[in-house]
């Protein structure tokens, strides 16, 4: 649905986006992830025709930019960060303005506005001024405006930034619902969001792509190491080392300093594909230690992200 080829954008001497290429398919939610200043917003602005690329090509459906900017804009809906709407307008009037600007036939406008309001849960604020509704509602009004013309592609820049946890959950749910039939590209620096919402993640760092994989595959490839967290009472580091390090499938074993109650935290990293939990449990049962905690920790996307975007 979207093909981005060697996209570059320079501002004076600064190369904000440097040869970025990626693809997004229909029915896919693609997360653009990166630290602040990585080039995410600039990339999205080029995708939506707000900024012209310095070089490179964007193919959206049957159209491309540079070339058919109006056609690309017609099939793309864009919600910038913080949903900058017109505060003096009523929600309904704002949606009617966007519907008219997107050339939705006048006879269809009320129905489309109603559908978008239903989808985004804004019926109760339709006749309130935008300046007086909450940030969460503003974000939803922005999403409803994007959905009015039923675009093939939705581009959302940090759609949950500044929202409270309940609002974040609601917006994520709406994005997931929309993402079933549309191509959704959204940027975020909230990693749990990408993990929870995206089918695929493109990590951008210093204007370049650091990783482009399905979310699960990315975690698997970079975070294939599964860690077992154990908490023991009555154990000492040397004894733990002697007992558990020789177990087949244990790649790495580290003991933290005991806490005030003398409990020893132990982290065991498994070799790729290995699962020595049963043997580790048997060995602990054979000692006089008390097992207080025993759980698996997968490497989170946050750790993957830190690993990929580490400075230096």
């Amino acid at each position, binding site marked *: 649905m979207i093909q981005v080829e060697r996209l570059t954008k320079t501002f004076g001497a600064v190369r904000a986006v440097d040869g970025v290429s990626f693809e997004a398919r229909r029915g896919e939610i693609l997360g653009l992830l990166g630290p602040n200043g990585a080039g995410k917003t600039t990339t999205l602005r080029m995708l939506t025709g*707000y900024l*012209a690329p310095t070089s490179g090509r964007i193919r959206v459906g049957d159209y491309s930019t540079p070339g058919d900017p109006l056609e690309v804009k017609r099939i793309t809906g864009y919600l*910038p960060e913080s949903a*900058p709407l017109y505060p003096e*307008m009523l929600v309904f009037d704002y949606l009617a303005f966007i519907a*008219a*600007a*997107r*050339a939705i036939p006048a006879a269809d406008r009320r129905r489309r506005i109603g559908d978008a309001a239903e989808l985004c849960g804004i019926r109760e604020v339709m006749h309130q001024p935008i300046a007086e509704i909450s940030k969460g509602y503003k974000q939803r009004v*922005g999403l409803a405006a994007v959905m009015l013309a039923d675009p093939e592609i939705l581009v959302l820049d940090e759609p949950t930034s500044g929202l409270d946890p309940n609002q974040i959950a609601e917006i994520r749910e709406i994005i997931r619902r929309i993402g079933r039939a549309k191509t959704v590209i959204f940027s975020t620096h909230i990693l749990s969001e990408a993990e929870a919402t995206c089918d695929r993640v493109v990590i951008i760092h210093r204007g370049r792509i650091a990783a482009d994989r399905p979310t699960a595959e990315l975690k698997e490839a970079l975070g294939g190491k599964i860690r077992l967290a154990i908490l023991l009472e009555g154990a000492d580091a040397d004894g733990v080392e002697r007992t558990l390090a020789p177990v087949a499938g244990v790649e790495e074993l580290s003991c933290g300093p005991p806490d005030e109650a003398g409990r020893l935290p132990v982290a065991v990293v498994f070799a790729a594909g290995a699962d020595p939990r049963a043997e580790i449990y048997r060995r602990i049962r054979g000692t006089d230690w008390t097992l207080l905690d025993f759980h698996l920790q997968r490497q989170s996307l946050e750790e993957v992200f830190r690993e990929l975007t580490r400075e230096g």
Partner: protein
Amino acid sequence: MRAAWTVCRRECSAYFASPIAYIVIVIFLLVVGWFFFSTFFLLNQASLRGFFRMLPVVFAFVVPAVTMRQFAEEFHSGSCEILLTLPVRLTEIVFGKFLACTIFVAALLAPTLAYPLLVASLGDLDPGPVIGGYLGALLLGAAFAAVGLFASALTKSQIVAFLTGSAISFGLCLVDQMAYFLPEAAARPLAHLAADVHFENIARGLVDTRDVLYFLSLGFLALYATVLVLEEKHG
């Protein structure tokens, strides 16, 4: 054109939904009303010449105040990101905003139509200069609105947009007087650029195509420059 009309309607509703529009109209009416009527009875002439004579300078400050928010506020709030990614041509956006500003200028002038009615009731008012004056005022206001839009497209700051728009408009009102200090060869072509001279010609009741063309050209050039500025920033 349909999209330009959509943008125009939105801008008009934004103007008239805000108290600032009414404050600007009231201030304009107070200023021109006071200056006009303070000399009107002394001159003892049934004429609106005094009212029209001050319009270029008053418009040089009032019209940029009307136009300053058009693009500057869009850039400042970020709403331009939504506006400029709608499937609408830049020319339509610029023309729509220009149309809204011109309608606002017409709304500024509309209450002053009471002046000719009042003057006509007091003496024998010649309708030619009055019709010419209002036509010229509309042309002048539209041309200054285009200049103000250009100034607004240059910056995120409404104050900078206002000052730039006022400086250009005021400069266009003073250019003939500044030309006195130049050699005649330079002064004569420069004097043709003076907005107040072209306006006064029309306000005398003589609608010359050269004067009308001046305002149309000034408006077109300023709007074209606005589109170029926006293209340079976002095209």
